């Protein structure tokens, strides 16, 4: 059984696992990181959304063999540390707007929201309602309107300039943020 090494929430981890196991199960079943949730296992509901080197990806849809030792995976558990705070501005916005009901989809919603805002900021613009319409994350409780409000607040409090700066030197941005 091959060994896979990568950086998980700022710490280097190694795990013995067959190549084709998807990242979601490596995180949840082998490493005990249970923030990312299973909602479909088809890349549809986005409840397992995490960040790979700062960009959103569906952990249910990527085989662990594709993850290289330099890759940084951030789950909801490690999100706050990427900004060196107790809570990421998006998490704080979620609390301020009392977004969650059952909470099952919300880790994925928050991770998708952060990535959406980063994408918009990276191209030098603010998020729009049209951007929010593109979010695919399913929330069966129907918290969608509060999610929209929270993302707008979270976006306003995310450091737009630092995101742009990071784009140029992608190698050690997040690890720097951890220490």
């Amino acid at each position, binding site marked *: 059984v091959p060994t896979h090494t990568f950086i998980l929430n700022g710490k280097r981890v190694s795990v013995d696992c067959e190549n084709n196991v998807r990242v979601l199960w490596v995180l949840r079943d082998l490493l005990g990181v249970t923030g990312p949730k299973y909602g479909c296992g088809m890349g549809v509901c986005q409840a397992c959304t995490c960040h790979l080197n700062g960009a959103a990806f569906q952990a249910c849809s990527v085989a662990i063999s*594709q993850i290289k030792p330099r890759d940084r995976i951030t789950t909801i558990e490690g999100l706050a540390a990427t900004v060196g705070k107790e809570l990421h501005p998006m998490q704080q916005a979620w609390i301020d707007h009392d977004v969650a009901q059952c909470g099952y989809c919300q880790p994925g919603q928050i991770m998708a929201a952060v990535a959406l805002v980063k994408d918009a900021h990276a191209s030098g613009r603010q998020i729009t309602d049209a951007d929010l319409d593109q979010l695919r994350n399913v929330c069966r409780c129907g918290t969608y309107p509060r999610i929209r409000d929270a993302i707008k607040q979270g976006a306003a409090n995310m450091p737009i300039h630092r995101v742009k700066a990071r784009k140029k030197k992608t190698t050690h941005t997040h690890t720097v943020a951890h220490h």
Partner: protein
Amino acid sequence: MLGYLIAAPTLVAGARWAADPQTARAALPTAQPVDNYDLTDLLTDATRPTAGMISIAVNRDGTVSFALPRSENGQGITTACAMTIADEMDLPLQKVRVTLADARPELVWNQFTAGSNSMHSLWTPLRAAAATARGRMTQAAARMWGVPASSLKIRDGVIFAPDGRTASFGDLAERAAVSKTVAFRPQLKRLSDLKLVGTAQRRIEAHEIVTGRKRFAMDVPLADALPTMVCRPPTINGTALAVLNRSEVLAMPGVTDVVLVPHTSTVQGGVAVRAKTFGQCIDAIRALKVRWGKGPVDDKSADTVLADLKQAEVPLPPAAPGGTVIEQVFTFNFRPGDPLEPNTAVADVRKDRAEIWSPLKSPIWAKQQIAMNLGMPVQKVTVHVTEGGGSFGRRLYCDAAFEAAAISQKIGKPVRLMWHRTDNFRHGRVHPMAISRVRAVYLGDNVLTLDQRHTGVATDFTEGFGEIVSYVADTPPNANYLGYSSGIFNLTANVPYNFGLVSQRLDEVYQYNTFNTSAVRNIFSPDVRTAIELIVDQLAKAMGKDPYQFRREFVRFDRGRAVLDKVAQVGNWGRAMPAGTAQGIAIHHEYKAFAACLVEIDARPKTVNRDVYNAYTGPRVTKLVFAVDVGLPINPLGLQAQMMGGSMDGIAQALTYSLHLKDGHFLEGSWDDAFYTRQWNTPRDVQIIVMPPTGDSPGGAGELGVAASMAATACAYARAVGKMPTTFPINHDRAQLGFDPLPYVPPIPPSPSLPIQRARRARKHVRHRQQKTAH
């Protein structure tokens, strides 16, 4: 209520009903019996005999614990209970610890989460228990200091003597404890003295949720409980006859067990696979070769079910002479009842005992049935209730717990059972398909009669509802299941207007378990009320009246008129709107509460055909205004959330969300096949108004939002396109399905495999669908 103090090392206080209050055995009026006695009364009466077993504990650290005998699935009752206790005790909210109680059979009907009844039934017992604890601690402090209890003041969990001495609840926890259970008369606060109840409070576990620490059943740390999934039959309730390649699959990476699980009355079964990871379970299930037996509905499709429903419909009596008849039959298709967290349960069954973890709304039934299934005494089975990732009626049914227990017993190891999403859609529990005939007769400015004949696929009420109906209504314990359905229907269906003689009746086809059905959120009401509200608009039109003014004139409850007026005013009813767009308005009364909803819909081609990748778009609700009167709102913020969520449900059920039955299976197998509301169909303007208190106890909230919003959306759509829809959801009979149905063998799709550079844009690369269909 009479309080009492329970023998314990620290203070434990409970309460019970001092006298036996009215019960269901009181005579029921015949016209609309539901006006005098409804499902809320039934469920609350069922809790009364054991209300005294609701207790809270004061801990040495000054916190107060409450093991809530209900299920929390996002409806916010843990927060509302914490607020109730904190307010009654003068304790900071964050010092109340609410957990979910394990199954307690001695509670009988008082550990059943259904009918939006939790806060209604717990409100008084919980306050009485809290007031008992508060009173007892005051008494203990007074004795300790030798001062009159009346001279003491309480603030933030601390008792103050006139001379400045203080004692915290923690200090008094042991001193106030009793060694023998004794009665105690609690002094409940006056409602006007409550400070926390009625204020907006955020969910108590919000921080855990946003940091990913909230634990669901699949997150229970039981190391040996390895991932387990079931390979399910190609058609509904089919049976696995033989596994043809067991050793081959056992040899696959990670796989530890492969076992045939026969279909029984409580276990769906198939072939169970246990492995190191769920990913390996998925691979193994796809590799399994199984000989399948037929299912009981292999010959059924939506059109044959519809024909059966029409056949079973009971004819209406002759219409009142002299009036004008408006009559229509509406069709409500099957739709999923599943939350986002799939069916899950952890089971550790040993030779002489069993331990189960699952998000269960009927845990006592689960415990008793599991004991029976396993052949163990009930007390050897421990059932833990985990917080659930949504319910909407689904968690009433203990399918995953039954199945996990059966598998764990069979292989002799702990299992972590999870249903695949595709299984949830195809083998999960559904809102039963139904037709609803409504006939109104009017003469001049009066409606003389309204009759409704609702005919549906049988709903499974064996999860606990049925037994409560039997128990409270004093019918034989094994009353037929149709009796259960009719009982629930008669306790919920109502017409909130003065329409003269009114009759509403439910009939059902098939057995309760022919299809896997569920008392999906708001049960019959979304369909029943949508059908009526559409006819109300027809009546208004026929009489030349405005839909809002017509309702205002005919509504027979002042509270109903107040919420109606509120949404009309806030929503600017009657404003000029472009062709192809329109407003719709509707009200609903249930759970001792009133709701009104106004929506604006855009059904213009530009909106209907808007392009969102791999999505069904269609008409969009652009604005939604909702007013809610629950009597006494405990947490207005949580109440708003429930109405918002209920409205997203209502919009979906009116416009987009359904299942297509063909040859014994549902075609939908993914969230991209069954179109529950997504961001692209979410209204951008949503306003929820909580009305000021109109009563002294909280009505129900969790299901209240669905019927009014579904009906308002349907009415708005009818007005926008100039034609009343008669089939729901309105996109159900579209020309093209809009997706390629996943195969049935193997029963679940492979895990997607995206190259890393594409994974970053994963949403662009999900399964391709056929050309999108504009409605």
